[in-house]
């Protein structure tokens, strides 16, 4: 039996971290692993969630928001992150815009939970960290309930580096009510 809560941060933990960072906008192409977070954000009055039709747009809207003074997180899936590489290159890397990403590891097999995602049998999962290293983007794994503080660390890194920083969401973000009842 897989104890999902052992491998996940909860939506309320993420939102609490966002609030500590002063994040007031999220741009996204919604991610299956982050459905609980997307759902919670719809009920969170202090953070506006802006849905886009492509990850390119999510990165571009986030950059425009930053230029206007907003504090933004970009929520995407691993395959969406791969699709948005050129906008990431243009705005995050060449233009040095601070961008905080939360990237869901869609397709990860449950037998890999608690293991090294680089050893996943799924290419979509195991190629993410080497790609981030190629792009010189620092990243932190969210692999369990104690990892939410990595969000604060990644946020600071994106500001200090003036560029992207990434949080890798290793499993489905927890629904708070369901998790507390189980």
């Amino acid at each position, binding site marked *: 039996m897989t104890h999902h809560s052992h491998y996940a941060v909860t939506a309320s933990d993420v939102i609490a971290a966002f609030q500590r960072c002063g994040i007031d*906008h999220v741009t996204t192409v919604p991610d299956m692993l982050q459905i609980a977070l997307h759902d919670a954000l719809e009920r969170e009055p202090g953070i506006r969630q*802006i849905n886009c039709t492509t990850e*390119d747009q999510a990165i571009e809207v986030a950059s*425009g928001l*930053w230029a206007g003074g907003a*504090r933004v997180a970009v929520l995407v899936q691993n395959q969406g992150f791969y699709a948005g590489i050129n*906008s990431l290159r243009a*705005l995050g890397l060449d233009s040095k*815009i601070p961008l905080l990403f939360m990237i869901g590891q869609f397709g990860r097999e449950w037998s890999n939970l608690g293991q090294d995602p680089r050893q996943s049998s799924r290419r979509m999962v195991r190629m993410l960290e080497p790609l981030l290293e190629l792009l010189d983007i620092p990243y932190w794994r969210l692999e369990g309930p104690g990892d939410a503080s990595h969000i604060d660390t990644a946020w600071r890194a994106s500001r200090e580096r003036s560029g992207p920083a990434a949080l890798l969401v290793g499993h489905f973000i927890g629904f708070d009510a369901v998790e507390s009842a189980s």
Partner: protein
Amino acid sequence: MMTLMQACQIVDEAREEAIIVTTMGAMGATDQLAPQRPLTVACVPLMGGAASLGMGLALARPDRTVMVLDGDASLLMELGGLVSVAQAQPDNFFHIVINNGVQFAGLGNLQTPGHSGIDFTGLARAAGYRACYRFDSAEQFAAGITEVLSGPAPAFVELAVSHNDATLGPANPAVEMTDARFTRMGDELRDIRARLGAGRA
């Protein structure tokens, strides 16, 4: 039909304190008209990204008019962005598309997909823009832009624009991209951020 310079001149004269996002052909014409104009950013090299960059600025600064000078081929690269804009409904967002029917205008003049009659204003209207306009001459556009900018938004404006002859050929077989082409977007975004007083990182 109007020239690209006429279109950009009319926008420049009407902009007042607006933020302007340019790309592709409009970037070159705007550079010629007013180099380093404040509150202006060129979305380059990032074909297709101008409207979304402008939408972010518009959402962050609802007190400011934001005008995007997009291209027809650029818009087609992120056509779903029309839906993203319509969903977010920034009421200070004006999306102006330079429709000249070609890519690499004045350089290679390659036909744009849909050059033979795509209905851009129809697409924007169907996506949910609150107002859509098309202007076929400089005279019409100059007479109508004030009404556009005082009307409902997000608004979409299609301009029928001519293009110059291609210059790339045996006598001019290549062009090199300068370093500045890769750094100006970030520099201009930081300048806008500073001018808007958006201090916190």
